[in-house]
């Protein structure tokens, strides 16, 4: 148990080191760079024109459908990896069982495909 905790702890330590190092570089940059903000410089870039309207808008549902499909297939993947590790010990039985499991999801994917969910317009 402690072995796994150590792994998690290491990832946290490394994230900490990364954050500190980036912050140090930002600090160094802040020390030696010039800062002369002006109204024009701080305005939103829109190819030199005065920005029109707001950019914080609602975005299309298309992304949402792809995200849903992603979640389903991502979970399928989580099941595939442990299966792949023990596959050589389990043999034909494992292959047939996984074929049924993946087959069910593929039916769902084909349904989404036929319904036009995979079409990007």
């Amino acid at each position, binding site marked *: 148990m402690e072995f796994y905790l150590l792994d998690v702890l290491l990832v946290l330590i*490394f*994230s900490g080191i990364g*954050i500190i190092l980036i912050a140090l570089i930002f600090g160094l940059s802040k020390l030696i760079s010039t*800062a002369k903000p002006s109204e024009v410089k701080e305005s939103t870039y829109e190819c030199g024109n005065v920005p029109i309207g707001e950019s914080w808008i609602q*975005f299309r549902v298309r992304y949402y459908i792809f995200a849903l499909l992603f979640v389903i297939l991502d979970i399928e993947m989580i099941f595939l990896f442990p299966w*792949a590790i023990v596959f050589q010990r389990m043999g034909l039985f494992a292959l047939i069982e996984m074929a049924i499991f993946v087959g069910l999801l593929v039916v769902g*994917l084909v349904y989404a495909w036929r319904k036009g969910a*995979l079409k*990007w317009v």
Partner: protein
Amino acid sequence: MNFSFLYLMGVAGVGIFIFIALSVLILVWLERKVAGHIQSRMGPMRVGWHGLVQTLADMVKLISKESILPAKADKWLFFLAPFVVFIPAYLSYMVIPFAPKLIIRDFNIGLLYFLAIPSISVVGIIMAGWGSNNKYALLGGLRSAAQIISYEIPRALSVVGVVMLAGSMSTVTIVKSQSSIWFILLQPLGFLIYFISTLAEVNRIPFDLPEAESELVAGFHTEYSGIKWSIFMMSEYANVFAGCALCVVLFLGGWHGFLIPKGEPWSSVVSLIWFMVKTLILIFLMMWLRWTLPRFRVDQLMDLSWKVFLPLALINIGLTGLFILGALKLFS
């Protein structure tokens, strides 16, 4: 676990950071040289021998440049986005086995870790896109999110075959199990899907829609400048290196090669050179593609992932299963 171990890990963490910084300097120089020669020009020539210190000079320039904060931007999202993009790229180096024993930590789920962690950077990309309050940045961020989640699936499915052959997800064990035969020979389809999906994951041409210059200016980092922009650049090249290095680990035999002396003190150095040479060849291939191919359209990009790569990757898993069963029958 004791204090000296933590100290060692701290040194290793800083070491990886320096390695990333140096490799980015070299890769940017290489990219510009390759681009130059492909387009029949010389590339950078003035600063140092064949422009070798050009990128170092650029880095000094970028650190000393003004970092503009747009008045309308969300201050915190804008500031934190470079961290969220860079840290996952940096963390993914923990499980890359450069040579026998030259690895930070051999997680038993190393491969899953490598597939999962770099995907977190998409959160940073959306933060940058949304926080900038800029239309180009928002479009770039959303496109990037759609692209990364779409290619995540074929990418992960293409390596299931490797896990089945090696019977482990530890990167070290995967390399060790390739001592007799490289997995690219058993998994050519898996290699192809993995490599092309990696191109898409790291947003490089022909999949660089999130930062398509001709339509979105610079995509999600349109509003970024100075040091913040260079962190985005650094994480892009760090991801390129890590992606190619993992490709070498999974399919091209990792540190294995010819002419490696056994049991000598310098044998791991030779292994390291083999690993680096293979990785550099793949990176060169990516650069070559970048300066040769035009860019995909968004619908083509999504179709390729969902309608071509996903079924192919599933077929690849089935074929690998049959292949292993056949081989087990034959040799038992």
